[in-house]
């Protein structure tokens, strides 16, 4: 197959999320950039079709500050409101109700955090919030621990995507839990995305090679020296990992196996 054909195959490789079809398997956050111009440039370079956004109080004393929606058009890119900063179910639910009213979207990212140091998910509160939100018609993508049993429970409840961490939020440590992530992928009937932990492009590839449907990241791009360049690197890393997964890697062997034929050796 010619390289251009391979590329065409990649672009046809779509995934389904809550009834919608997406081509890009990279979801990017919009926090920590130096300004909205840089945010927009990085999002464009990443090729992401979905971006996460936070819900916060409007600065009433300075209403003419630039707004995210003026730089990233919600009609062209899917806004995924999150509950970052929420440490209990009630505040997460309250935040997403406001988000739905602000934007009119049902697709949300639920994350209920356990403590400031690790930003690990509080799964008890996460279950509680997910139950209320699903009952109210939200389509819940859920940030969760890398526990396959908890993930199966969240899927049974009706979450539309399971999003375990690969390492603590903002740590950039790479995928620390390939065994758990793979178990979660094997059992899930909804998309599984690694959410948090990616530090550089090879980490994104590792996640995709495990068979993830996608990767969600923010800090790895925003805190790179050149965020726009890193956004493109992440796009390529995700695509390359996905292709490698589809291609099926060679088995690992204990010893060497020559690449040149031995027959005809002088």
């Amino acid at each position, binding site marked *: 197959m010619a390289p251009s054909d391979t590329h065409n195959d990649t672009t046809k490789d779509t995934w389904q999320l809550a009834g919608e079809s997406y081509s890009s398997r990279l979801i990017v*956050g*919009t*926090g*920590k*950039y130096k300004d*909205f111009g840089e*945010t927009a440039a990085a999002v464009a370079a990443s090729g992401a079709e979905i971006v*996460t*956004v*936070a*819900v*916060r*109080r*409007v600065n*009433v004393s300075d*209403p*003419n500050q630039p*707004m*995210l*929606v003026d730089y990233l058009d919600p009609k062209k890119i899917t*806004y995924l*409101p*999150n509950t*970052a900063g929420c440490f209990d179910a009630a505040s997460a639910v*309250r935040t997403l*109700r*406001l*988000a739905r*009213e*602000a*934007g009119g979207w049902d697709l949300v990212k639920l994350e209920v955090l356990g403590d400031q140091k690790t930003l690990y998910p509080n799964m008890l509160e996460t279950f509680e919030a997910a139950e209320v939100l699903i009952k109210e018609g939200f389509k819940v993508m859920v940030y969760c621990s890398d526990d396959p049993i908890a993930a199966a429970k969240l899927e049974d409840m009706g979450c539309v995507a399971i999003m375990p961490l690969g390492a603590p*939020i*903002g740590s950039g440590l790479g995928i620390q839990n390939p065994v758990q992530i793979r178990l979660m992928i094997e059992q899930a009937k909804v998309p599984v995305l690694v959410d948090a932990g990616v530090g550089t492009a090879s980490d994104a590839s590792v996640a995709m090679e495990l068979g993830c449907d996608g990767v969600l*990241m*923010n*800090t790895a791009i*925003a805190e790179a020296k050149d965020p726009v360049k890193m956004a493109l690197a992440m796009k390529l890393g995700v695509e390359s990992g996905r292709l490698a997964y589809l291609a099926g890697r060679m088995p690992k062997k204990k010893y060497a196996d020559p690449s040149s034929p031995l027959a005809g050796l002088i």
Partner: protein
Amino acid sequence: MSLSITVNGDPRPIEPGQSVWTFLEGLELDPKKVAVERNLEIVSKSLFKDVILADGDQLEIVHFIGGG
């Protein structure tokens, strides 16, 4: 006589008889780009012009910002 309401945690005097819509416009906020919670209940955008603010109301006005 003016009323006193709380907006995003801060007290604020307002003229009586204002709807959520006119209040937002008075703040120079685009009502299409924000969501409003009044006394812990969401105010639907379609009701912005109908809901009249009352003395002691607690308002939260939020919008989308960058986040991960």
